[in-house]
């Protein structure tokens, strides 16, 4: 079994320099969208962004969920969760229904709205780099160690250690550990996460379970429904026939 990789982003160490933003643009050959990394937003040409909330900074990127909603909702399986952890997208399969965008609890996937053959775009955790044993571009570029790349289990342990050792520095929650079934990106903060613009109402249960509960009823509906329709047809048909025969006998 391959060890899953992940990213730990500790926003308390972030100084908002935007090196991760620039490195990501260079690595993924994304077009320049804004001269100030702090004033940009996620888009088809921006996989990660640094946001300023009062005096705090936070990053935004794909969370690479353990049980990704995008993987579950895509009708043609254009999304895959790799063994290493990154969630990848295959534009050749995509039909462009944008259900992934509608469904993603983190509102991550973005669309090439201006193109006539548009793709969904999002962070892929530098899959080509990490396959070779390297880190992600953003973690390698980070001058303060706010973005760490490594084995997911090590990062989880590290995050817990930080919360325990410095209870005054941190808001006691690891964002991404349990949200929507957990993810390969973990985030630490000194303030409640909704103050940094994160969705605070995400359930712990992975969202694909919500639709699975409906989908698993299909065989039952077909079976019971089919039997009901056949039975009903037979019964009412027979009733009509008997009524008709009686009528004919009466006529004789």
């Amino acid at each position: 079994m391959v060890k899953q990789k992940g990213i730990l982003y500790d926003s308390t160490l972030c100084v908002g320099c935007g090196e991760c933003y620039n490195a990501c643009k260079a690595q993924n050959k994304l077009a320049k969208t804004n001269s100030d990394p702090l004033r940009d937003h996620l888009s088809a040409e921006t996989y990660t962004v640094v946001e300023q909330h009062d005096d705090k900074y936070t990053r935004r990127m794909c969370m690479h969920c353990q049980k990704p909603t995008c993987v579950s909702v895509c009708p043609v399986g254009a999304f895959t969760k790799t063994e290493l952890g990154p969630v990848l997208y295959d534009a050749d399969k995509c039909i462009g229904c944008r259900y992934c965008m509608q469904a993603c609890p983190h509102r991550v996937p973005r669309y090439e709205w201006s193109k006539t053959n548009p793709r969904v775009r999002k962070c892929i955790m530098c899959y080509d780099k990490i396959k070779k044993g390297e880190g992600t571009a953003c973690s390698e570029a980070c001058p303060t160690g706010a973005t760490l790349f490594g084995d997911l289990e090590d990062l989880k342990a590290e995050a817990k250690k930080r919360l325990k050792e410095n209870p005054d520095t941190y808001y006691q929650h690891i964002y991404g550990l349990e949200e929507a079934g957990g993810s390969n990106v973990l985030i630490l903060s000194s303030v409640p996460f909704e103050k940094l613009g994160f969705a605070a109402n995400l359930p712990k249960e992975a969202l694909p379970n919500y639709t699975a509960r409906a989908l698993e009823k299909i065989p039952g509906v077909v079976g019971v429904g089919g039997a009901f329709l056949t039975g009903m047809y037979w019964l009412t048909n027979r009733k009509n026939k008997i009524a008709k025969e009686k009528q004919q006998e009466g006529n004789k």
Partner: protein
Amino acid sequence: MKTGSIFKLTFWKAVAVIIIAAGLYSVVFRFSRGLGAATNLNDVFPWGLWIGFDILCGVGLAAGGFTICAVTHIFNIKKFEPLTRPSILTAFLGYLLVIFGLLADLGKPWNIWHAIIMWNTHSVMFEVAWCVMLYTTVLFLEFAPVILERFKLNKLLMIMRKVSIPIMMLGILLSTLHQSSLGSLFLIVPTKMHPLWYSPILPVYFYMSAIATGFAMVIFESYTSARAFNHGIKLNLLSSIAKITFVMLILTAAVRFIDLAILNKLNYLLISSSETYMFYLELFIGTVIPVYLLSQKKFRESRKWLYISALFVIGGFLLNRVNVSITSLTGSANYNYFPSVYEISITMMLVTVGMVAFKLITQNFPVFEELHEGESEESEAVHGREAILSE
């Protein structure tokens, strides 16, 4: 109908031509400039009018097809037979329009066939895609006898009649899955949707409201086409249909309110917000008013009032689907979506093409025929089928 009449220009024909021409221009614009230029959709609001109206409402309004089939051919209440053909035709045209709406909305419509070979059975959209494909085929087969009769292809007609009952059963099952799955699509966004519309039983609610609306559509079609063609659809048939609609409306509303109560969401009804007002609007138009109208015998037995009641049911249904797919999601997205002129124009074109196609087909094919001179022929055919099935 005189053969030359199709070229005679009337006011409504001119309106239809203008709508279709504008729609075609919008289609060209949409495919040459992309979705961003043609629509008011964006990264936080990726689904709009085409999904909310063309697809959700298009499929819902086609529900008359399977509901009438079930009543006539499974429950064998044969008196509704005259209503089946127009209902199946509407459903078939409705589904074709859904497919065209989808082609406009998809970013890569040329890949639409991928759903046939690239399976993801965890996806509700996958289920939806298969239901659209299969049920459109079934609707075509259900309507095929009309075409075969027109061209007197009696051998094929006999074969079609032998398999008609299994095909109709398949159609009812597929509709059940499809109507409910459109509700299931939204089960995956519990944190984005407004609580008044989100519910784990959305698929059940979608199914029940589709049945109520399906019957209302039958009344609507009968009235409008009877007016256009002077086919005297029997009033007592429509009154009986109205009773079923009445019961389904009450059941649907009951399920909805019990669900809100169980999930402790009744307090949202007292919060003043645009969502709450939209909820009430939907409730009054789609449930309260038609339930009152249909509870009165004098309205149930008036052609005009039946038609008005049906319009309210359909209007409330449209509002509900638009509320589920658009209104309920605007709050969390913090974006007030309103469709662009191109989105509206393509939608109007699809609806217009559907109405024109309905008119042309009913003029040229025996859709209403069994009502008058075809009646004895049709009942013979029914007898013939029964004889074959009982062998």
